[in-house]
């Protein structure tokens, strides 16, 4: 995935001021920054929910402006806001998104059951989503994001509403996806998580890239990534 010189203004707020980075298959790429830095807007542009004012995004050879539907077919997104259809069961929720993501009818059952097994959803698969815990809902959200087997997975603050156990499961899933050769984009402001998981990171501040490179490189001689982050965003 290649992001080049992205610019975006929402209302009177200039959210992005020329963001560029690249993320590759088989790595976890961290998009870090404080709240309001432009992380979510960047991800929304990548997944074609927003159009950039300037700049381009290329996902596996598809331009987000020219082929948005193709791009959406190649990516899966998990956000902090765990929205699932409350009156559908976990299984129905996953199947619905599989169908909308153009999983062929002949593969539908196999794919749905596959992700249910992989994410250990079986015990509550037929329960209505309204009765599920936050952790269970997050599993359903992950399942629906990956049921069409996307090449790019984007996680936008995926653990911010979860307890310790559920957060750990999400992190493990990200590592497992990387091992499967997926390109994993991880947006977070939790430096500890980023340091543990990310191969490379880009730090955003006020809509601009303030640092980019391998995690260890960006940390430099500092004890923790958080120290580097605070230096870069100008907090003493």
């Amino acid at each position, binding site marked *: 995935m290649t992001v080049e010189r992205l610019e975006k203004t929402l209302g009177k707020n200039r959210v992005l001021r020329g963001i560029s980075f690249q993320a590759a298959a088989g790595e976890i790429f961290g998009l870090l920054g404080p709240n309001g830095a432009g992380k979510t807007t960047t991800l929304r542009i990548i997944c074609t929910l927003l159009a950039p004012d300037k700049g381009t995004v290329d996902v596996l050879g598809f331009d987000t402006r020219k082929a948005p*539907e193709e791009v959406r077919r190649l990516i899966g997104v998990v956000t902090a*806001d765990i929205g699932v259809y409350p*009156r559908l069961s976990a299984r129905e929720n996953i199947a619905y998104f599989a169908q909308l993501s153009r999983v062929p009818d002949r593969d539908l059952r196999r794919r749905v059951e596959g992700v249910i097994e992989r994410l250990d959803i079986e015990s509550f698969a037929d329960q209505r989503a309204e009765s599920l815990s936050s952790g269970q809902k997050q599993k359903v959200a992950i399942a629906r994001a990956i049921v069409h087997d996307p090449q790019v997975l984007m996680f936008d603050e995926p653990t911010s509403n979860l307890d310790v156990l559920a957060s750990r499961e999400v992190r493990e899933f990200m590592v497992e996806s990387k091992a499967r050769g997926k390109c994993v984009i991880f947006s977070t402001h939790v430096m500890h998580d980023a340091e543990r998981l990310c191969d490379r990171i880009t730090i955003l501040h006020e809509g601009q890239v303030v640092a980019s490179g391998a995690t260890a490189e960006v940390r430099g001689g500092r004890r923790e990534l958080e120290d580097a982050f605070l230096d870069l965003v100008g907090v003493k």
Partner: protein
Amino acid sequence: MDAAWIVYRKEIIEILRDRRTLMAIGLAALATPIVLSVISQISTRTATQTYTVGYTGDVPTGLDELMVATNLKLVAVTDPAAAAKQQVDIGVAFGAAEVDEYYDPSRQSAQIAATRLETVLGQYGAAQAAAALQSRGIDPGILSPVHLVAHPLSSPVKASSNAFLSFFLPYILITMILTGGFSAALDSTAGERERKTLESLLLTPAPRSRVLLGKIAAVTTISLVAAVAAIGSMFVALSQISLPGPSSSAHITLNPVAVPVMVWVALLIGVSFSSVTLALGTLAKTFRQGQAYVTPLYFITIFPASIILFIPDFNPGLAIYLVPILNAVLVLRDAIVHNAVEWSTLAVTSVSLLATGAISWFAALRLFTREGLLTRS
């Protein structure tokens, strides 16, 4: 599988599991029979009820029997005017050559009793005159030298039934199409935003126009189901209930022409309303806010149906048939009352409603595809 069909199927499943929508449809089916039953009972009671007449003076011979026969009960009072305020329904002072009547026009019972008394007195006077003429060997027929023979061009019973239906049916049809789909439309737009499922839905490769089409089709289906439930239950109730007046001996039925016209108009209104409510729901951040946006629509649409109630003989020019909803009400009225519809009015109405549906669809699509759909949340 087409994305519109996938969305349609999922929306229908969700709606059928939604208590709010099911209650709306259930109420639609129950409300009409209950209202009709109450109206029927009150009307029957009013027609057969005995009213009291407080009187002073001497009651003319034979009049008391006539009054009893027409459910007017004579009660002796000291002051008929004072008694007519509350104690009795009307007060009467019988004099030698005249009868003074006292009644309070603000009381419905007084109005009915007064009308009944006037009829009785008219019949009593005519009978007395006829008896006097007969006693002198004169044919009482001279009192009515010209006989009026009425030849109604259609059954008065049917006309009465049609007059009732021409107001009630469009009213129920429009109300139920709007309220039946109201909850479903808001749930699938503002509700999606509130539950935070909208972003996930828009992240799928499904074209937004197909997603919207599936939602509109689902809301239209539910609207029409609610309308069919309400109208079906209305006719079941009408087949069991006798309304007062000339139609009391017959059941109210719908003309053959009115049925296809009703189906066609309902379909067009259903699609238009679904698009409009979905567009308004898309503007709202929450279900509650959506309710605030859609509620005025209810009052706007009820107004045209009321025109038929207040101006039953409203026969406008063709241009008026361009006004959405009003045109549907007028075409339905024509079909119900005259058992016929002019092709020109039906064509103008169809074009108008199709254009309304198309504009509403376009507006909904514009709202559904703009960036603000997400950034508003």
